[in-house]
């Protein structure tokens, strides 16, 4: 027991040492300059730039809303496929979950780049990236929720001679619908955060402004953008949590 603990500790220490060794920049950071950057960004904030930023924020929210809605619909068949208690074939839920995991693991920035290269830069690509990526997590949550549906109620419905579709419509949908909405809302929350950075690669939203100002090194503008993103994320977080508490 003690020997294992020593072994694990040494392993972790070695891993950390090796990892840290790989993190070197060509030039050491200049702390004086960083202080100056922070001063330019926030003291005082360049409020005259705020209207432009708010337009970008609006676009980010629109991207997140539409992307989430599309994902919430597209995730339905995946959720049903991956739920163990609905499966006719034992292999299907396994394949379904694997697929959902794969989608979830695929970074949305990469999806965004792919869509930009094929349909051109702009919010359209952002919506697609968010929609596809979100299927992974929403689908997984759907499946797990369906799996907790009371089996007795389903059997009772089956005993009345209801068809599979009728069982689904009357036994499962009413029970899971509020939770499904809650999952979508939660994902929307995360997607607002994502949609605010997608613009860094050209997929629309407030990130587009961040990218432009970053290349120009315009710190006062960047400061306003960062403040706006943080406030938006906090607000959406707050209201989404409130709404979800109501749904529960």
């Amino acid at each position, binding site marked *: 027991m003690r020997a294992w603990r020593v072994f694990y500790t040494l392993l*972790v220490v070695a891993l950390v040492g090796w990892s840290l060794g790989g*993190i070197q920049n060509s030039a050491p950071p200049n702390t004086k300059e960083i202080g100056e950057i922070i001063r330019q960004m926030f003291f005082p904030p360049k409020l005259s730039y705020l209207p432009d930023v708010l337009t970008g924020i609006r676009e980010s929210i629109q991207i997140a*809303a539409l992307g989430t809605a599309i994902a919430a619909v597209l995730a339905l068949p995946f959720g049903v496929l991956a739920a163990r208690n609905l499966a006719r074939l034992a292999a299907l839920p396994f394949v379904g979950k694997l697929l959902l995991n794969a989608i979830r693991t695929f970074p949305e920035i990469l999806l965004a780049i792919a*869509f930009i290269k094929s349909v051109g830069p702009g919010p359209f690509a952002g919506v697609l990236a968010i929609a596809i990526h979100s299927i992974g997590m929403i689908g997984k949550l759907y499946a797990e929720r369906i799996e907790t549906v009371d089996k007795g109620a389903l059997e009772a419905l089956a005993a009345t001679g209801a068809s599979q579709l009728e069982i689904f419509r009357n036994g499962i949908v009413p029970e899971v619908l509020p939770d499904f909405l809650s999952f979508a809302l939660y994902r929307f929350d995360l997607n607002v955060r994502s949609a605010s950075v997608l613009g860094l690669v050209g997929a629309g939203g407030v*990130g587009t402004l961040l990218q432009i100002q970053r290349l120009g090194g315009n710190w006062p503008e960047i400061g306003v953008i960062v403040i706006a*993103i943080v406030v938006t994320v906090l607000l959406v977080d707050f209201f989404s949590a409130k709404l979800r508490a109501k749904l529960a």
Partner: protein
Amino acid sequence: MKGRGWLTAAIVAGVLYWSALGTGFSLPELSENLPAIGEFFRKLFPSDGKPWPTDALPEITKRLIETFRIAISASLFGSLLALPLPLIASRTLAGKTLYTFGRAVLNLVRSVPDLVLATLLAASFGIGPMAGFLALLVFSFGVVGKLLCDSVETIDPGPMEAIAAAGGTRFQQAFCAVFPQVGPDFLAYTLYSFEINVRAASVLGVVGAGGIGMVLQSSLSLMKYTQVGLVILITFGVVFLIDSFSTWLRGRLV
């Protein structure tokens, strides 16, 4: 109830319509673009029996390793830095004023998207893995800190009382009664933040913050699409494996 359901549906439909207008998204537009999307994905794979561009493999391997170094050190140091957070941001260990302040700071830290932070850091620290490391460190600090504080708030307070009764200080109560109870949780949260960081580290390069994303960015700008395909396949495969392994490990911890 029925009426409220319809009202909600109407509001959602309104928001979506507004969003579709703002983003220029529509189904005809989508179907018009589908061939282009298909065409792009086809370009990622070698055609006409041509091989994968294996000459890029050394660079890919090097940057992939850099990705993991960033993710590992950021997760570990971020988590370690988060360890004392329950002292200021959990109801169990912090007084009311300190708690309110601690939670506010924690929420603020967590609300900055990691790529925004990486962008800023890359712009001030210069291109390279340092920016990525720091950005993900802050992320791990935030997420592990929050989860740990939540965990600490659900522990059994009995042992704390016992240590207080024996003359232990508040710090000793935290260290000898609270932390031993959340040890496995802490490890699980560290692993969880590592999973997210591996994914995040693989795209940091697109803003110049080191890792495999750097290769991706350069391949894209040189329009070497099969190389892009190779990078994506390898990255995705390795990230998927690590993610699955870490998830399995977490399942065994709790």
